[in-house]
């Protein structure tokens, strides 16, 4: 018997610049989820380094990672992952609560964020009273409310019909134009095509890195695994 070590990722070195719009592509089991977890600070690499904004986060403990996630990463999930019992506004407010902002300031910022995704009139609805597209927009508002360095989306259109999927991708386009750094993890070419850079992962290693425009940016994320 004995445990077999599986390297979900090996020999992956890449740099992502501030303001980039990147798609990470790969079939399921390719290791793109692991890469996303590392980039999103949900997990640390067993070996190798991950620098976010010039800070090495590979050695951080649970609580430090939580703080980094709160400040630097905005997540958008395939399953929306909103809190079912909280209304839209409270969901958006949550990262600010964990950031320890006073109540009135939280409210102001959250209201602003929810208005930006066009859901001001729905802010007191619970997630089950919203459509899929609306839920995902709430999730985007929640992701952006703390002004993170990276907006990290995992199959953001996976649970949406094609029409609302396009809506969300348009929203991302918009956010990218405004200077947000966006990383989208997907296996759909249609979704990836919106990005200006496509990184392909296969069997745990880098299989391609194509840029669709070559404007220069400052480094925001660097990752390398041996």
């Amino acid at each position, binding site marked *: 018997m004995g445990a077999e070590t599986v390297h979900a990722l090996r020999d992956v070195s890449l740099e992502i610049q501030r303001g980039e719009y990147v798609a990470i592509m790969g079939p399921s089991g390719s290791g793109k989820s692991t890469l996303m977890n590392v980039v999103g600070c*949900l997990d640390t690499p067993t070996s190798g380094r991950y620098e976010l904004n010039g800070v090495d986060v590979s050695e951080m403990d649970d609580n430090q990672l*939580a703080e980094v996630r*709160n400040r630097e990463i905005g997540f958008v999930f395939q399953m929306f992952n909103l809190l079912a019992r909280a209304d839209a506004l409270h969901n958006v407010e949550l990262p600010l609560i*964990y950031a320890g902002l006073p109540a009135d300031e939280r409210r102001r910022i959250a209201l602003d964020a929810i208005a930006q995704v066009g859901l001001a009139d729905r802010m007191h609805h619970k997630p089950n009273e919203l459509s899929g597209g609306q839920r995902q927009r709430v999730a985007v508002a929640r992701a952006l409310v703390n002004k993170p360095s990276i907006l990290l989306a995992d199959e953001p259109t996976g649970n949406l019909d094609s029409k609302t999927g396009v809506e969300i991708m348009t929203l991302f386009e918009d956010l990218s134009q405004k200077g947000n750094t966006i990383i989208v993890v997907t296996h759909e070419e249609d979704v990836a095509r919106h990005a200006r850079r496509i990184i392909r992962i296969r069997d745990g290693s880098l299989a391609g890195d194509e840029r669709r425009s070559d404007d220069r940016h400052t480094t925001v994320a660097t990752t390398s695994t041996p």
Partner: protein
Amino acid sequence: MKILTELREGLGISWDAIRANKMRSILTTLGIVIGIVTVTLMSAAIQGLNRAFVKSISALGADVFYVQRDSWINDTEEDWLNSQKRRTIRVADAEALANQLTLAVAVAPVAEANASVQFKNRSASGVTILGTTEDYLLTSGVEMSEGRFLSAADASGGRPVCVVGEQVATNLFQTASPLGQKIKINAQSFEVVGVLEKQGSFLGMISLDNRAIIPLKQITTVFLRDPDVVIQVKARELVQLDEAREDLRHAMRRVRRLAPSEPDDFAINQQDQIVTLFHRETATIALIGLFVTGLSLFVGGIGIMNIMFVSVTERTREIGIRKAIGAKRRTILLQFLIEAVCICLLGGLIGMGIAGLLTFAVEKILPTVMSPAIVGIALFVSLATGVVSGFLPAWRAARMTPVDALRYE
């Protein structure tokens, strides 16, 4: 600031969670309610018993010594047998003692007998007849409801006068005033000069109102020529009690002409002794009682722990989401701890309400007391139960990794 925000958020989440699973919350709370009710009732009963006892025992007076042949409390049967062999304490001893004492305000020898008392065709039987002096008013602390107590002249002259207890007065005279009437004790005639205030009973057994008090000199002529007396000595000041006791002991040894090598052949009794003994006994009862009732609270606590584990498992995904957007271990731990504490405090409050009503209902029959201390302790106990039983589930939640928690279906 930050911790306050987290607490408020935690409270909100807990309340939502409790409301979302109403039936489950009610049943879990019920376990705590039952636990708190039993523990609170037990404490109330014990405290009530203590209060009733202390109230009753206070009739003895905290600053009064009772010099008598035997001790109130004997550790062994042998001690008791030895004390029975001692010489009686005589009226003359009491007089000699009174002359020797410096730290006493009153010295009252008391001889006791039992007799029936008659007034015209009515009679009261089993009346305790006390023969004493005017000092008894000070040592016993009795109050007069009518007339006066024995005077110094009554006592020294051995005049045939008496003071009767409330029960004797009602039995013999009903509503009429007994003052100035002549009653017969052991076929001897006594004029009633005063009536005592109602005192109730001592430890619920001996009535303190079925008494008649006559001059000591009368009791030696009517009943016993040489009675065994109890000398009641009231100390000058409560703070000097130990000194007064030593003073009294030495004086009494001189009176009894004891050689330095001989042990005391008398006992000095105090209210204190009984109180100490009583508290020792009730402490044991309280310990056993609280242990048994505490078990039901413990079972309630297990219920909470169980349901919290379920709650944590059910909300694994929520924990994952919260962690992904920046909740720290502490935040998650706090969230689930607050939920457990909320259920327990709720149960505690309801339990205390029920216990309060029950206490109020049985107050007439049983001496129960629901003091602020009990309320405070019960609240603290329910809070502690929440923390203790919520900790393990909350810790499990706090330690989840966001990746695994998010993946949980």
